């Protein structure tokens, strides 16, 4: 069973770009233990990205030589790290979705299902990490509560895109959305917060990552990621 290219690229780009963002934390984390934790997550995601991209091409060509418009990751993962609360909110939204999606894909057949079965265990840990921190920030100090609330609200508009059908993936997206919403609601309520209000997408831009339309910070991030590789065409490293 051949791997659906669109799907492998979409999921591979999600993992690659989020890993790139998490890699920016190295040397900047709030406490040493968290340096180790964030790097673990970034490494898991990078491993997933490499496996996914390699299913449909050369991982480095795909990562380093595509233009911005050719990347099909959701916009959520490219959002800048912000403060620790923003990073945790991004992790919570994404890893909860990723765990549910990969759990469903794992029951299928073929290379993608195999990958999902392995990755879902890693992702469950990422989700747990995000949950633990959502609880601590939400129910910690007044300041942390406010920051967590702000972060959840700021990223909310990027969550709708997670449930756009991806070509080649046989998933009941509506059911996935319901389950995701249930889980997120549960966590944020336990953290003494509530689900943000407002649309999970807007008329322009938010929610078009899968179509290759990205947010402003993405181009800059890509420039940083790709410049060295592109400066030495054909070189091997």
């Amino acid at each position, binding site marked *: 069973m051949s791997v659906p290219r669109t799907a492998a690229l979409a999921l591979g780009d999600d993992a690659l770009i989020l890993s790139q963002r998490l890699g920016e934390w190295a040397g*900047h984390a709030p406490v040493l233990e968290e340096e180790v934790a964030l790097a673990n997550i970034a490494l898991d995601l*990078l491993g997933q*990205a*490499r496996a996914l991209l390699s299913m449909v091409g050369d991982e480095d060509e795909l990562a380093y030589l595509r233009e911005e418009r050719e990347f099909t990751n959701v916009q959520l993962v490219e959002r800048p790290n912000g403060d620790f609360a923003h990073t945790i909110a991004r992790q919570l939204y994404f890893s909860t979705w990723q765990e549910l999606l990969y759990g469903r894909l794992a029951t299928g057949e073929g290379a993608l299902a195999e990958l999902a079965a392995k990755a879902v265990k890693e992702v469950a840990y990422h989700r747990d990490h995000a949950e633990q921190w959502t609880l601590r920030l939400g129910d910690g100090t007044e300041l*942390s509560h406010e920051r967590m609330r702000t972060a959840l609200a700021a990223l909310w508009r990027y969550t709708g895109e997670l449930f756009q059908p991806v070509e080649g993936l046989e998933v009941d997206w509506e059911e996935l959305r319901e389950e995701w919403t249930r889980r997120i609601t549960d966590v944020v309520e336990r953290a003494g917060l509530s689900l943000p209000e407002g649309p999970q997408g807007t008329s322009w831009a938010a929610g078009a990552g899968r179509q290759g339309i990205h947010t402003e910070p993405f181009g800059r991030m890509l420039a940083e990621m790709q410049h060295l590789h592109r400066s030495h065409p054909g070189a091997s490293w």
Partner: protein
Amino acid sequence: MTTLLPETDQGGGPEAYEKAFDAAIAADERIEPRDWMPDAYRATLIRQMAQHAHSEIIGMQPEANWITRAPSLRRKAILMAKVQDEAGHGLYLYSAAETLGVSRDELLDKLHSGRQKYSSIFNYPTLTWADVGAIGWLVDGAAITNQVPLCRCSYGPYARAMVRVCKEESFHQRQGYELLLALSRGTPAQHAMAQDAVNRWWWPSLMMFGPPDDASKHSARSMAWKIKRHSNDELRQRFVDICVPQAESLGLTLPDPELRWNEERGHYDHGPIDWDEFNEVLRGNGPCNEQRLEQRRRAHEEGAWVREAAAAYAHKHREQGRNGRTAA
């Protein structure tokens, strides 16, 4: 940790304790945290372990500088894992230091306020991708040469932390060497990048072993206490002897015209080290001293609200926590 049994007085005074300590050192036994030890031994260890731990976490910065720009995904993964290890090694070492009764916060305060040092090597910048390779090969190589004997250091927790560190670091040096080899055998531009990095990192790496033996103020006593097992010059020589043939295999040269084999000594002779530069960097005038410390302080300060939040949460939920699962 609390101690249940009263200390037994078997008729000896402080001299008896000192005698027991000296005997343990002489017999190559390990000193453990709750053993009696001379104040100066304790102070020396705290200073050295703290400096070592600080070096690990400051040392993350020059390499982390390239994580987002690593030129292949394989290299990106390797580099990320390596920088992560350094955070882990910092943690092992801070924990080992804490067995002597100082807290990590105290030590971090001293680092942030400049009262404790870290290895000067990290005050040099990583200007190109090849610097990541040069750090792995030369800086980690020098560090390993220094650290392997520390696995037999007389202080138990330090020695045990070093066993773990050395085991994990074995891949650090190899990845650096492999990275440089790929560049050296790559395009002319890549080769030039590798040579440039080796030129810049060679001398600072030799300085990592510290001042020459006759000018090293802490060395003799540390050797007597078996905290240190070999002199600075001895270890430096060992490192030079290892590196010369490795550089040849890399197809790169070491920037020292006086470097040559000395048949009589059975070692390589090398040119004079610029100790003025070493002292300048140590005094805070290296290219990156301010930048490194500033980033560290900022990360710590900007993270304060996160640490406070978790502490506040733990305080509120302590009761619920008691109902958690028990060990089995």
